[in-house]
């Protein structure tokens, strides 16, 4: 039985944290894995801190990643890094905005997808499926900007 992969995404309301976690969860779901995704709605819509957990593997129990057990911590806002570092496992990977060259982004709003590009290099989902799932989460007029962001992160 292979172990559960734990991913924590963090940022501020409006940055697309939940969209990013939806995309990862969908990839795991399409791969036929057991997957759980957890988040808190409500007050987070008003610009406050937002986090979302995604866990996948053969069998997942709690929908929340335990402290200190995240394999990947993806943080969209620099100021949210410190508060969430405790989630990361000792050998875990921190992915933060400075992993990509922000000046190269067509739209600053696509930062979430750029950081998914960085994350994608560590996960065993094929690049084609990543692209397919990302496109499925956006209207057509935003496809080019988000594909560009994904490439930017993937090649960073």
């Amino acid at each position, binding site marked *: 039985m292979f172990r559960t992969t734990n991913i924590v995404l963090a940022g501020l309301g409006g940055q697309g944290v939940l969209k990013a976690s939806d995309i990862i969860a969908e990839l795991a779901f399409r791969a036929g894995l057991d997957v759980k995704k957890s988040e808190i709605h*409500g007050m987070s819509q008003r610009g406050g*801190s937002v986090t979302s957990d995604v866990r996948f593997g053969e069998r997942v129990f709690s929908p929340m990643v335990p402290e200190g057990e995240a394999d990947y911590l993806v943080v969209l806002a620099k100021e949210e890094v410190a508060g969430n570092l405790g989630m990361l496992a000792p050998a875990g990977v921190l992915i933060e905005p400075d992993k990509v060259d922000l000046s190269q982004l067509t739209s600053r709003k696509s930062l979430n997808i750029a950081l998914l590009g960085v994350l994608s290099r560590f996960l065993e989902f094929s690049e084609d499926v990543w692209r397919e799932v990302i496109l499925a989460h956006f209207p057509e007029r935003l496809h080019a900007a988000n594909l560009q962001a994904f490439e930017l992160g993937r090649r960073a």
Partner: protein
Amino acid sequence: MPEVPKRRWFLSGDEAVALACCHAGVHLGAGYPGTPSTEILEAFDAWGGQAQWSPNEKVALEVGIGAAFAGARAVVTMKHVGLNVAADPLFTVAYTGVTGALLIVSADDPGMASSQNEQDNRRYAVAAGLPMLEPSDSQESYDYTLRAIEVSERWGIPVLLRMTTRVCHSKTVVNTPSYPPPPLRDPAFVRDIPSRVMIPAYARSAHRRLRTKLAEIAAWNERQGPNLLIEGAGSLGIITSGIAYQHVREAAPQAAVLKLGMTYPAPVGQMQSFAASVDRCVVVEEGDPFLVEIARTAGIPVEGKPEMYRFGELTVQRVRRIVNRDESPEPPPPPGKPPSLCPGCPHRIVFSALRDLDCIVSGDIGCYSLGVLPPFQAMDALVCMGASIGAGLGMRHVLPPAQARRVVSVIGDSTFVHSGLTGLVEMVYNPPTHGHVVLILDNGTTAMTGMQEHPGTGRRLDHQKTGKFVFEDFARMLGIPQVHVVDPALDPDGFRELLQRCLDSGELCVIIARRNCLLAAASIREYERCENVSND
């Protein structure tokens, strides 16, 4: 009834309840928006169900009761505090019972992600005498919805589906078909006066009938209820329910587990033999010591969680600590940025004025509750939906005149329709000596819960046009001497001056500050455009 497809889904607990309602052919869904329950009716509507927002949870439950009296399947959804509002019909519909099915979803919020308290609504099942199911993930949310409908129809009794934030809002895999939807009957009225008319003479026997039903359901739950026994590899046994079960399986993988799906009436016999089969039996449950008390009342020796874990949500780490009897202080949660009123939110102008005029603000539930935080700090009390008006009046009645004249009640549009109407009637009936000022913040939507419609928007849950509640007409109809309708964003200084004039007047005043929520404005324009097109 639709054919249940063979399919693998990835759904939130809320969506899973809605899907089960669709598959069971539920005739009517009613509720009032409230985190974390809101998405149930939205998803039910999106999948073709008849779903509607009521002015408040009490009305929603009454609509559900009527439908279930008429032989239909009805689902009524609300957050935990909503069940307080609906408690009056709840206790008596337990007596009357139902002809069809009545499923009442209570979505509790342990940890208060978006609520004013963390009450444990499992207590309502005992207090009212209603069977209760507690799902732990989306698959169970789906299955238990169908089971609840079955139990409701078999015993003619309303059933409580008690969910919590992490079950409602976590997405997990759901496979269909799983539990089979019970066969559906068409609604039809059959007269049954002694069962449904709760005058004392009929209510006395109705109470006895309720207790008989509960005894039968307890026996059924003991034999065939949705309870799960997992063998362990050691001396530890854990009794648990709901989301805590998921944490337990991860925190204590070797433990024997008795996972209860129907926690009222609880399968006390199963709990008894489980506890006897292990050396140490711990009850791991979120919130109140509910199962612990049931076990101890029955003389079952169990260990509960230390009091410190009664507060907030459970997690895998906290369950590890409970199992290890670790009562050392927990690390404080990371600070994080608090939410705030959106930049450009029209409420900002209102709260700036309330702050600048040093008002004593009796506040209410909604986005505008954030007016309590810096830079405004312009809220002095907040209790429950609608309390701003009554509490403001109470302060006005007893404070010395200089302070009484500064009291303002602030309430949102959806909250006003929910339970501000009677407060306004109270103001007219028992007016304070120095008058009062009620500010209705009408931003054209139920913003807090994610832009739901309400009677004051004149659009239904599905955003189609319907009858409209008009705030100013209602206030004028009550004979309130000053009723002002203004857009504070057009003239912030003018708004502050108006508020000052109202406070100085010593009269009863209602100011309706009307401007659409920034986040909803584009959608509202689109709905209005569609209405105009269809009118042409």
